[in-house]
């Protein structure tokens, strides 16, 4: 068994799992954090995206043992008791998602982008989200939500006309 201790959403969590356990399975089955989704299980869809040490990765392609000692942020770590994270709020305001399956991964990819680049171009947003497939929406409102969230996080008013 692999004994792992990681910091998940600011809390130390430990588990003892078979070595072949992926980070995704650890989060979902051991820690009951089901925000990260199991889509393709081979790195194509991004539904399992979580942020490890500041970088978005596919949790289906990382072993739990490789995440030992690291900081992991999942979608459950974004909202606070005061309300949604500005990126989540922007997705809601723009009605950016339909079934929502891709949402946790997309929002985390967007967060990693905005943490580094507070004013991305539409092309930079597309590049940052290229590993997150959405089968429902067509992406337009997703891109707009990320732009709105970027403005909100910069402290600017939402600009619906642009």
């Amino acid at each position, binding site marked *: 068994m692999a004994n792992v201790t990681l910091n998940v959403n600011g809390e130390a969590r430990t588990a003892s799992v078979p070595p072949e356990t992926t980070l995704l399975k650890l989060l979902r089955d051991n820690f009951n954090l089901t925000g990260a989704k199991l889509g393709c299980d*081979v790195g194509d869809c991004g539904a399992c995206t979580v942020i490890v040490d500041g970088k*978005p990765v*596919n949790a289906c*392609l990382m*072993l739990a043992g490789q995440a030992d000692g690291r900081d992991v942020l999942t979608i459950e770590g974004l909202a606070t008791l005061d309300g949604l994270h500005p990126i989540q709020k922007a997705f809601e305001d723009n009605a950016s998602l339909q079934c929502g399956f891709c949402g946790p991964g997309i929002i985390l990819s967007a967060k990693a982008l905005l943490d580094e680049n507070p004013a991305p171009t539409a092309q930079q947003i597309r590049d940052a989200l*290229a*590993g997150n497939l959405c089968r429902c929406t067509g992406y337009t409102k997703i891109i707009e939500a990320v732009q709105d969230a970027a403005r909100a996080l910069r402290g600017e008013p939402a600009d619906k006309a642009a």
Partner: protein
Amino acid sequence: MRAFELVTATDCRHAVALLAEYGPFAKVLAGGTDLLVELKSSPHVPEVIIDISRAEDLKIIAVTDEGLSIGALVTHTEIMRSALIREMFPALVDAAHTIGAVQTRNLGTLGGNLMSGVPSMDSGPALIALDALVTVAGPAGRRQMPLAEFFVGPRKTILKPDELLAEIVIPKQNFGKPAHFVKFGLRKGQALALVNVAASLWVGRDKQVFAAPRIALGAVAPTVIRAPKAEAYLEGRAITPEAMAEAGRIAVGEAKPISDFRASAEYRQDLIAVLIKRALEGACAQAKAKRDRET
């Protein structure tokens, strides 16, 4: 995934010792973006997985006496962000940027990409066009060889089971050599190459002629290949659009593309000619920009 034992290597030396200990039963895990996909679908799983992803001494990017050394565990994201590589070899940055998506590039390593040995790998052509060497670490110490001689067939390299790919070196004589990488896939994001091409060249000291031109191609043969006939045609020849187009046509005869579900062999042949011209044009444009900066 089937069960295996997981052991963690602390550094390169430790990884080599673990390989010696577990021998043919073991396989190395770097970023896992190829290996975990393979393990999930394969009925044959190695008994032991040696996780090298924490070996810090394999993550170094540095200029040494030999040239630019890139550790095998450097990720594609780290290549894109390295100020050193951005300045010295933008073609490597362009190649890294085309690999998968952000998530893949954050985990996937340069060494893992080369070791995967797939003909469409995106880091092979630019490195081969820059005459890169690979350093391999094994029980008897280190050995070095040109990357172009490292690949022996689809998914096959000359690495022995008890050896580790340690670093990739771009030799000093190629510092500042203009190079350009182009990839053609079916989509802009997250698509494997139908054909990818890199070219590098010097411009003759007195005349506008090609000097030491290199052309490397992926996804058109069982391994990444060079196009020696096209290179020989260009050597010493005046830099013109016609010469670049002719080099592309010559290289078509040096490749052996196959038809698969992504594209037909004929389509790939057309791509080879077009992409070589574009890669050469890109490298020439870079040479010109460099000359303009220096004068």
